[in-house]
């Protein structure tokens, strides 16, 4: 390279060579990198979605705190809340007994244990109306069935097993995803049919689960109408001890996941799924299912992502249950 080309050396009064070089460098060579329009759009969408989620979460946390306070005072009074307290207590006692004596076997009507993060924080949409009564979420659990030798997961930081507290949801909350249409990033599963994701069969046997291709894949459930969602329970494949990777659960108002996208759960610690970094912990897939506190978020579509598992690169879904109440 030659630097012998002679630049214009005329120098305005009071300006040093150094100053002129700065001017020349910034004016001639400075080409600030600008973000792509696509990224600008994505950032705006992600920021708006996060702000909406934050707002809803804050409102629901406030409401939940007040409801728990109300529940405590109700327990003291006993009279007005007698029936509800009895139901909750029976469920708690039932769970404790089951837990102490033996693992539950195809338990029906068992109060769902709480997820690791929010203990029964059944969020409520703010409607300004009377607050509904909270009751334990009842799940019909499949038979526990771990086969084979579990992978060595020593040193893994997995979410602890669920506690035994009941997971509280508003009275009237039900499985709104049963037999609802399912779509997927892999339209032709290697094993099974997509409708099996919402057919109510959670058993860890052949014919109960679907297998999607390797890499990042999702299944999406259309609830057919906007619902206030309180809990999402997923069973990937609980026949052996596995951890599914990059599990992300999002909800949205449209089927293309453009409007009102909110992330309910994300344990992708390194953004390898490209949906943002999540702070949730990885977990062992078990017959109890993965219960995610959706805090009453209002949405019509639910999408569950995963990216392989500790046994292979495939993605499996035995059942996804979405518990909520159709929005008014």
């Amino acid at each position, binding site marked *: 390279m030659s630097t012998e080309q002679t630049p214009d050396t005329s120098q305005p009064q009071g300006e040093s060579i150094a100053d002129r070089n700065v001017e020349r460098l*910034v004016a001639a060579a400075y080409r600030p990198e600008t973000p792509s329009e696509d990224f600008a759009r994505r950032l705006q969408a992600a920021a708006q979605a996060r702000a909406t989620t934050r707002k809803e979460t804050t409102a629901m946390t406030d409401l939940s705190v007040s409801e728990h306070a109300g529940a405590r005072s109700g327990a003291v009074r006993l009279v007005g809340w007698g029936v509800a307290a009895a139901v909750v207590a029976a469920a708690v006692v039932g769970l404790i007994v089951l837990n102490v004596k033996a693992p539950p076997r195809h338990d029906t009507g068992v109060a769902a244990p709480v997820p690791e993060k929010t203990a029964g924080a059944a969020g409520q949409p703010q409607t300004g109306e009377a607050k509904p009564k909270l009751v334990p979420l009842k799940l019909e659990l499949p038979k526990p069935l771990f086969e084979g030798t579990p992978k060595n997961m020593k040193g893994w930081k997995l979410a602890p097993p669920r506690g035994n507290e009941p997971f509280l949801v508003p009275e009237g909350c039900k499985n709104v995803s049963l037999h609802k249409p399912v779509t997927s990033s892999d339209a032709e599963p290697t094993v099974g049919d997509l409708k099996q994701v919402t057919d109510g069969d959670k058993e860890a046997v052949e014919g109960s689960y679907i297998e999607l291709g390797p890499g990042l894949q999702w299944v999406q459930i259309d609830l057919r109408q906007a619902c206030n969602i309180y809990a999402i329970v997923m069973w990937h494949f609980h026949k052996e001890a596995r951890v599914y990777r990059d599990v992300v659960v999002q909800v949205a108002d449209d089927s293309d996941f453009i409007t009102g996208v909110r992330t309910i759960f994300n344990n992708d610690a390194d953004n390898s799924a490209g949906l943002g970094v999540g702070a949730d912990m990885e977990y062992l897939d078990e017959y109890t299912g993965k219960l995610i506190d959706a805090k009453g978020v209002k949405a019509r579509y639910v999408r569950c992502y995963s990216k392989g598992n500790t046994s292979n690169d495939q993605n499996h879904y035995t059942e996804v249950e979405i518990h909520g109440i159709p929005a008014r």
Partner: protein
Amino acid sequence: MFASFDAHWRDQALAGDPQAIQELADLALRTLYSFCLYRVGNKRELCEEAVQETVLHAIDRLAEYDPQRADGDVLPWLTGLARNEIHRVLAREKGTVSLEELWASVDGELLAAYGRVNAELLSDEVLRREETRELVNATMSQLPPHYRAALECKYVEGRSVREMAELQSVSEKAAESLLSRAREAFRATFLAISRNIETQVRTSC
């Protein structure tokens, strides 16, 4: 439109006001992007990740932002959050982000020309070199935002010192003083980075 990132803006943002959130994201696109880009080795995908995570964390932690203490300037708080994200990204990408990679094609003669920035006018050819563009961009990204803005205002947009003073609502003397400090910071940073590259090039040879 919010006049600044003041208490009113923060209240609106905390309430999820789309306009307030959009302004935060716009600011991140305007300023954080360049702040992050060269700090993650000029890798766009890493930069996008750092910027997006910074904005999302900022929304999550908005209650911690004190507009009064920050005098309505959210950028220092935002860049503080961005540094954490950059640190996280670099820790993960350990060994893949380096100036050495960025400056693989730089030659000794060019580095020598950079080293004489205080003594000799740079030739047009040096100014046209891709490496120079990278170095200037990297230098600008390291400057405090008000210095970068002053240099852009004067040398990219071509405004006079008087216009700059009017824009900033300060005296001409204050605007000139800011510009002078910005040039000084630019030179010091430009030299520091080029010397760093020179050291790396020598070490690798």
